[in-house]
Structure formats: structure tokens, C-alpha cells
């Protein structure tokens, strides 16, 4: 039940987050490189938004994958392993992703000669 509720809550959050993300990153279409991304991500507010977005999308993706796998009868006995594995994968991906977002620092630009 809790997985389902988290799935739906993050779904609502993602409608907003993902729309925002698609628009600010991809429109107008152009060459994507560090300097273009840093225009936005230098601002700590955008870093915060992206980290929250990352959290929501990871929860939704893993809850969704869990639902898909649990539908298969042969997988149902492995429910605990599935949840444990998802949490580990989620934490690793979140830490790595958050580090990446924080790595968009203007000083990294200056380091490039």
C-alpha cells in the first residue's frame, strides 16, 4: 500500500518537475554543453529543485519497476529482496546524482583553459 501511495504522490510531483525540466533543458533546442547548463545550475535554487526532482523520479521509477515485477507470479515470493535491492539502488543513484548536480559549479568552468 505504501509503495502505491508513494507512486501516486511522486507521480503528481513529477508532472510538474518533469514539465519544468523538459522545457528549461531542451527549449529552445541548441547545442548542450557545460556552459549552457551552468547558466541555470549555478543558481542554488535550481540545484535544490533538481535534487528534489531526482528524489521524486527515483522513487517513482523504482516503485514502478517494483509493480511491474510483482505482477509476475514467479517474482512475488522475492518481495523483500526486491524492496531491499530497490532501496540500495535508489540510494546509490541518488547520492551519485546529487553529487553530479552539485558538481555544476562555476569554478569548474574556470578550471577549463
Amino acid at each position, binding site marked *: *500500500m505504501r509503495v*502505491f*501511495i508513494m507512486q501516486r504522490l511522486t507521480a503528481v510531483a513529477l508532472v510538474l518537475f518533469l514539465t519544468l525540466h523538459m522545457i528549461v533543458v531542451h527549449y529552445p533546442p541548441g547545442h548542450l554543453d557545460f556552459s549552457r547548463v551552468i547558466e541555470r545550475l549555478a543558481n542554488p535554487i535550481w540545484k535544490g529543485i533538481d535534487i528534489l526532482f531526482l528524489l521524486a523520479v527515483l522513487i517513482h521509477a523504482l516503485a514502478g519497476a517494483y509493480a511491474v515485477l510483482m505482477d*509476475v507470479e514467479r517474482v*512475488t515470493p522475492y518481495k523483500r529482496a526486491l524492496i531491499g535491492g530497490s532501496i540500495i539502488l535508489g540510494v546509490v543513484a541518488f547520492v551519485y546524482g546529487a553529487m553530479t548536480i552539485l558538481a555544476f559549479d562555476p569554478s569548474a568552468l574556470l578550471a577549463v583553459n
Partner: protein
Amino acid sequence: MANHEPTQKATIRVQRFNPDVDPKPYLATFEIDITGDTTILDALELIKGTLDGSLTFRRSCRHAICGSCAMNVNGRNMLVCNRRVNALLDRQGRVTIRPLPYLPIIKDLVVDRSSFWEQYLRVKPWLIPPATNGGPMTGEYHVLPEEVEALKMAETCIMCGACYSACQVVAMNKQYIGPHALLKAFLRVLDPRDAAPAERLANVGGEDGVFRCHTIFNCIDACPKGLDPTFAIETLRKLAQKRQAFEADRLERQKSL
């Protein structure tokens, strides 16, 4: 036959399978004469009576109340006793009858409904009345008209299995409780005379219950009585999240029952 109605020809394709003889199921074709009133069940009886006595299928009341004759016709689950052949002929003038899908086939159009009944029993489909402290009931229950109205879309289930067999979640996972049993659970949970809604909601709110439904709506499409298991499941989903509060309200309601 004293019937002077004009007849037309119809091609009836029926899936056959005799486990003692056949390696796998196959489609047999029969040509029969039908009138405007011939039902699919009439057609099957005609085939069995005059063309092939070994054709095996379940049927009983022939007026859509016993639930025995649910089958898959032209790819959709339905009762065969209340559907006319000439309304279901495809562009090649054929009707294709198969057994209910996703269930083991016993013979021809007869399937093994064990999982259907096991899941049904799992939700305790009987009413659990308020405790009378060992004594007899002292009067009738007073149930309000709006409470009866809320149950209308779940009452007339004839346990035919059309919804259960049409459900894609059931197809993938026989541990899923299923639209038929969840509809029955809804009927009991919303009944003011039932004293155990929290237990029922905990039962259907588990991993195999209401949260497994993916709102595919096949159950509604298949139901010959026009019932709404999806709405029942959505309602149970909302109630399962606050089952203690719901039971508290129920106990309060039962004081004036």
C-alpha cells in the same frame, strides 16, 4: 419445427480440446441454420444435438442468472445464453467461440475455475453481522435507502467468471484476488450491517489485492450484468488507507441500526 421464420446460414467456429486424444486445442468449424432469435447457446446445443455429441460446455438456466455459460466469443468474454448469433457474426459470417482465457482447460469449452473460487473465499464473502452477545436478534436491521443505493452496482453478480478471466492482472498472476472477489468485498465493506470492515480492508489492501489493479477496465467490458468492479476497487483503495477511521464510523452507525 413449427417456426416459420426465415433461416440463414451461419458458420460457428468452436475451440475443441480433448486432453485424452488431442496434443493441443484446435478450431472446429460447423455450418448451421439460424433465425433472428438464435442465441449462441442455442447454436452450441444444436451442434451438440445434431452434429457432434462430444462437444462439451457448461450451461444451465439459459436466461443469464446462473452464471454457468461464460465463454470467449470473438475475443470478448460474455454469457452465451443471452447473445444472438446474427448480432455477433464477423465480416466472414462467422462466430468464434473459445473457452474463458487464462484458465486451464478441462475439455473443449470447460475451464478449471478453482483459482476463481479460492480467491472468492479469500475475501470472506459472507456478511459478518454485529455481535449479539450470544442472544438472538431482537428486531430487523434498519438500512437507509442511500446505503442500499450505494451497493446497487455490486449486488447482482452471478459469479460467471467473465470479469476474472478477462483481467490481464489475473492472466499474469493467479495470486491476484481478482475483480469478482474485490467486488464482493466492496459489497460487504459498504454494508452497514457488516461489523468487520477494517479486517476486510486490511485483507484486500495487501500485495495481491486492490493495489494490483491497473485499471484496464476489461472487467466492466465483460460483465453481463453491467457491474463495475473497477469503481469498487478504486473505492476500496481509498478506504483501505483509512480503515481504522472507517471502522469507527461503522461501529457508530451500528448503534442506530
